[in-house]
């Protein structure tokens, strides 16, 4: 399937385009369909099926709130690794296990679900390098902000976000949020994240 990129029709998926080397790279899209707004060479196929039957290698695999027919997150990441060219990028948009358990029915069935730390370990263990975790707002489908979980960026972002809220200086909630921000735990406590890794 090939389309001319359309930047204006639907802005969902903008961060995937930001991550990609260019708009003409070969993309395997798993989950909701909107990559074709941003890329000209998009294949939509079940991940498990593509991995089982062989497929041309891709520059980018997008697992958007879906395991693509795989039974576990680990098997999905392994399958994606097999389908990528060396240097190819895997992007997983999923839910935070720490938070999704509290959200109950609002969680998406079969969405990739793990803690930020767990997902990082899975990606590294599967052979991905330069693994970077991002917290997303307000959700993974149409994030307004994407925040790299490393301390300098996440600290600035969350401090700025909390400054706009009206709370007294010594409010326990404010103090707790400030402490979590200083400890750089805030990105790991957000409901949704995107994790990106490059195949070695």
């Amino acid at each position, binding site marked *: 399937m090939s389309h001319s990129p359309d*930047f*204006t029709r639907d*802005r969902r998926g*903008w*961060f995937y*385009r*930001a*991550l990609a*080397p*260019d708009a003409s790279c070969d993309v395997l899209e798993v989950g909701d369909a909107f990559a074709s707004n941003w890329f000209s060479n998009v294949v939509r196929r079940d991940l498990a099926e593509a991995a089982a039957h062989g497929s041309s290698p891709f520059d980018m695999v997008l697992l958007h709130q879906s395991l693509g027919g795989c039974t576990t997150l680990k098997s999905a990441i392994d399958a994606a690794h097999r389908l990528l060219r060396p240097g190819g990028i895997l992007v997983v948009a999923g839910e935070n296990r720490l938070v999704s358990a509290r959200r109950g029915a609002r969680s998406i069935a079969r969405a990739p679900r793990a803690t930020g730390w767990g997902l990082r370990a899975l990606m590294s263990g599967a052979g991905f390098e*330069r693994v970077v975790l991002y917290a997303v707002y307000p959700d993974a489908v149409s994030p*307004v*902000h*994407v*925040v*790299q979980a*490393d*301390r*300098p*960026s*996440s600290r*600035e*972002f969350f401090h*700025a976000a909390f*400054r*706009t809220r*009206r709370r007294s200086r010594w409010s326990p909630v404010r103090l707790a949020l400030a402490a979590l921000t200083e400890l750089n735990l805030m990105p790991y406590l957000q409901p949704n994240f995107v994790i990106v890794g490059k195949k070695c």
Partner: protein
Amino acid sequence: MLAAAREALVHHGVLGPSEELPPFFAKFGGNLVLGMLVYPNSGEFYVVKVAVQSGLDREYRGLSAAYAAMPRNASRPLGLTHHRSFPVLVSSGIRHKPLIPLHGRGSVQSFESGIKAFLATSVRAFRTLPGEGASSGLSEALEHASTLTPWPDWHAYLERIAPEVAILPRIPQHGDLSVNNIGVAGGQLIFFDWEDFGFVDLPGFDLAVLLLSLNDFDVRRLVVRLRTPSLERRLMQNGCVSLGMTTDLLLLLFPAYLSLFAQMKDMLGYGPEVARRAIAALTRWLSTEHAPDSRSAQRSAFAAH
């Protein structure tokens, strides 16, 4: 886009040639621009904008003009370059607090004096810049608004304001001087987001947008605030002094400002919702006592205060 951002940072000497893109957070703006705040180890941070479809020339021009005229109130532009077919604008970041909420009397006074100074500086420093001309765009903007707003007096209104507009100096406007685009750092106001700079050069436009944004584009609330002693009323009075125009003229031009705002947002690709909001505000304005055909009533209402 991230690769283009990294290459631009290397180009401006912020990163070494082999350094990775430092930690960042990003937002994809309504005008199809990826805006990033990038945090290298140096302790400073940088604002990087990557445009998907449009250029960033206008913003670079605005930011450069602003930094030259008021270096304490605008971030320093490092340059506009092209990488991987994307225009990329890099500027140094300024750590600031959001303007809203305004806390305490000192904060309000500092806001008022900062806006007054901004308007005075813009009159002095920007009027010599080559603007793209609001006078030519004004009639188109009003014509466009007339198709969306049922008001029978559009033609008469244009005829009425034309001689007033003709004698006003052309001063390129910031274009989106909403409270969201103003921060506070070291007691100074910091003005951000110059991407709409110079699209409108009709004086008073920035002040009108600021007054509207202070009231979340709720025209009825603004009208009440302008009628009574309030921050908005003081901003209008002091702002008009800085701009060298009367408050009557500013109020007369409000439909023109809103029409230009709607047209600009529509043309610059902000999506229909923003333009719709401006048109809704315009429709509201024309239903208040400040509609241009009830000027006598308006004058008496303001004179009473």
